[in-house]
C-alpha cells in the first residue's frame, strides 16, 4: 500500500498546489467576476476584485449589442461539423496509415507529421487565395471544408490504432470480416477514448477559432463568436463588462462538452500518451 506523506510534507505541498491553481485560474475567475461588475468598477482604484452587486444586465447588454445568438449558432455549427468530419476522415486516414501495407505509407505519414511543424500563420495567406479562387469566401464552406481533416488528429488516432493488437484484426479476418467491417466493428468501438479525445481537441480548437474567420468571413451571417466578441473592442472604447459577459457565455458549451467526455478524454490521453 502507498504510504501517505506526513502532515509536514502535505501542508506545504497543498499550499503550493492551491497557489498554482489560483494563479492558473485567475484570468478565468477575473473574467467571471468582471462579467457581473458595473463598468466603473472594472478599473477602479484601488482595484476591487468583487463587484458591489452582481449585475446580470451585462449579459443582456452584450446580446443586444452584437448578434450573439447568430454567432453562437455559427460557432456551434462550424465546430460540430468540423469535429464530425474530422472523426470520419482522420479515422479513415489513421487506419490506412497504421494497418494497411502499401508503398510510400511511412513517407506519407512523415510528410503529414512534418506539417505539424508549420505554423498556421504561414499557411493563412495561401489558404485564403485558394478558397477565394474557389469562391468560398463568406460561407460556412470556408469555415468547414479546409479543416475536414487534420494532421494532429490523424497522428493521434494512428498512434492509438497501432496499440490495438493485430491478433484482434486477424481473428476478425479469419472469421470472414473484410477491412471495412473490421474498421467499423472492431477498430472504431475499441478506439472510443481516442475518438473522444480528438473530438474534444477539435471542438475546442474550432470553437475558439479567431484568425481564420476574421480573414475569410466579413458577412455577419457567417461570423463566429470569437470574432464577434472582439467587436466590443474599438479604437475609442472597450466594453470590458460586455466582453467578459460574452466570453463567459462562450465557455459554457466547452464545459458541457468536457463534462460528458472527461472520462474517455483522460483515458485517451493516458493511452495515446499525447497531450496538447
Amino acid at each position, binding site marked *: 500500500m502507498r504510504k501517505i506523506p506526513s502532515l509536514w510534507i502535505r501542508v506545504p505541498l497543498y499550499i503550493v498546489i492551491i497557489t498554482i491553481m489560483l494563479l492558473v485560474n485567475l484570468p478565468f475567475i477575473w473574467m467571471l467576476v468582471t462579467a457581473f461588475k458595473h463598468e466603473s468598477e472594472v478599473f477602479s482604484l484601488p482595484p476591487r476584485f468583487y463587484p458591489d452587486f452582481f449585475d446580470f444586465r451585462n449579459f443582456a447588454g452584450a446580446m443586444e449589442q452584437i448578434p450573439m445568438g447568430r454567432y453562437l449558432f455559427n460557432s456551434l455549427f462550424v465546430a460540430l461539423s468540423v469535429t464530425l468530419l474530422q472523426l470520419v476522415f482522420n479515422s479513415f486516414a489513421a487506419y490506412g496509415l497504421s494497418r494497411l501495407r502499401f508503398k510510400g505509407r511511412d513517407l506519407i505519414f512523415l510528410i503529414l507529421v512534418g506539417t505539424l511543424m508549420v505554423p498556421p500563420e504561414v499557411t493563412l495567406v495561401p489558404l485564403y487565395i485558394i478558397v477565394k479562387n474557389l469562391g468560398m469566401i463568406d460561407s460556412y464552406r470556408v469555415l468547414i471544408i479546409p479543416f475536414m481533416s487534420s494532421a494532429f488528429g490523424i497522428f493521434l488516432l494512428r498512434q492509438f490504432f497501432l496499440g490495438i*493488437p493485430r*491478433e*484482434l484484426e*486477424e*481473428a*476478425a*479476418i*479469419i*472469421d*470472414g*470480416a*473484410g477491412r471495412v*467491417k473490421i474498421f467499423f*466493428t*472492431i477498430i472504431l*468501438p*475499441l478506439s472510443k477514448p481516442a475518438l473522444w479525445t480528438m473530438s474534444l481537441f477539435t471542438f475546442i480548437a474550432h470553437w475558439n477559432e479567431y484568425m481564420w474567420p476574421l480573414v475569410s468571413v466579413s458577412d455577419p451571417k457567417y461570423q463566429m463568436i470569437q470574432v464577434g466578441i472582439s467587436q466590443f473592442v474599438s479604437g475609442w472604447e472597450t466594453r470590458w463588462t460586455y466582453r467578459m459577459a460574452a466570453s463567459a457565455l462562450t465557455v459554457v458549451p466547452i464545459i458541457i462538452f468536457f463534462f460528458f467526455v472527461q472520462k474517455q478524454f483522460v483515458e485517451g490521453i493516458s493511452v495515446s500518451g499525447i497531450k496538447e
Partner: protein
Amino acid sequence: MGLVLENITKIFRSDGSDMRAVDHIALEIPSGALVTLLGPSGCGKTTTLRMIAGFELPTEGSVRLEGEDITFLPPNQRNISMVFQSYALFPHLSVEENVAFGLKIKHISRDTVRKETREMIDLVGLRGLEKRRPDQLSGGQQQRVALARSLVMKPKVLLFDEPLSNLDAKLRESMRLEIRRIQQETAITSVYVTHDQVEAMSISDLIVIMEKGKIMQKGSPFEVYIRPENAFVADFIGKVNFIEGVADKQDPESGIVVSSSLKKSFNCRNALVEKGRPARIVVRPEAFSLSNARNEELNSIAGTVLSYSFLGSHLEYIVKLPDGSVINALEYNLSERQLPRVGEEKRLFFSKENAWTIPG
C-alpha cells in the same frame, strides 16, 4: 488427405538480408487428425501455421486443402479458423457476441445464429456466462470462448497457436484434455502449435518436430519418444541419456554398439546406423534399473551417485560413469527402500528393447 503442405518455404527479407523461417516443409495431415507442430522458439512452427491460415504467403511451395490449392486464397475464404495465443477476443463484445461474430458476417438468419451460438456455448461449457465481457472471465473461460468462436464457423481446419501458454499449469492440463475431447467430438482436422512437449504428447495423433525451419521428425507421440531419428528429437522430447560408441551390428531388434570409452559393448535396437559408423544409444531415464550388485552383466554400467532428488513417486539420480559422462536415471517403487548415499556405487541396467540407436 485433409491438409497438404507441399514443400513450403518462407523467407523473410529485411534490411537486405534473408531469414529462412520455414525451409521446404512437406506434410500431409489426414482429415480429422490433430497434428502438433512442436519445437523451440524460432523454429518456424508459428510461421507454418500462419501460412496455413493465409496470414503469410509462402515464398515457395503450396498449401492444399481437400485437394484444392489455397496458397493464394485470402484467410477469410479458406474455411479455416484459428485459436490465438492471446485468445484475441473482442473486448467490447459479450461472450455471445464474440461467438456469433463470424456467423453474423455470413448473413445467416438471426434464429440460426442464435441457435448455433447457444449450441457452441454449451459445447464448451459456458452456459450462463453469455452476457459477460471477456474481462469478466477467467483465463480458462476466455480460452473456451476463443474455441467456441472458432468452432462455430464449422471450419475444415482448426489452427491452434500455443493456445494454453497463458494459463497456469493446472488449468493447462484440464484445458488440453478439453480441447482434445472437443476436437475428437467435432472431428475437425486440427493443427496445434506448441513448444511444450508434454502438451504435444498428450493431445496429438501426429507430432511434427521442427528445428531451424525444418522438420526433424514426424510420427505418433509413441514413435517420436521411443524411436527418435536424431539427437535433437531425442533430446527435445523428454529427458534422455546418450551412450556414445560405434555400431558393430545393424539390426532393428538386436544391434550392437561398442563404446570405447566405457570399454563395453551394448545390445540395442539399431535400425539406422551402419556397421562401423559412429552411433549413440538413446536410453530414457526411466528405462534404467539400479542395483547395488557388483557383477558385470550385459547392458550394465557401474557408476557413482553424484546426487539424487526425492520427487515423491520416484527418485531421480545423477550418476557419474567411469568415462566421466553423466547419466540421469529414475527409480520407482520406493517403498521400504533406503535412500541412497551420495558417492555410493550403483549398477545401472537397461534392456536392449529400451535402447534405441541413432547416428552419432
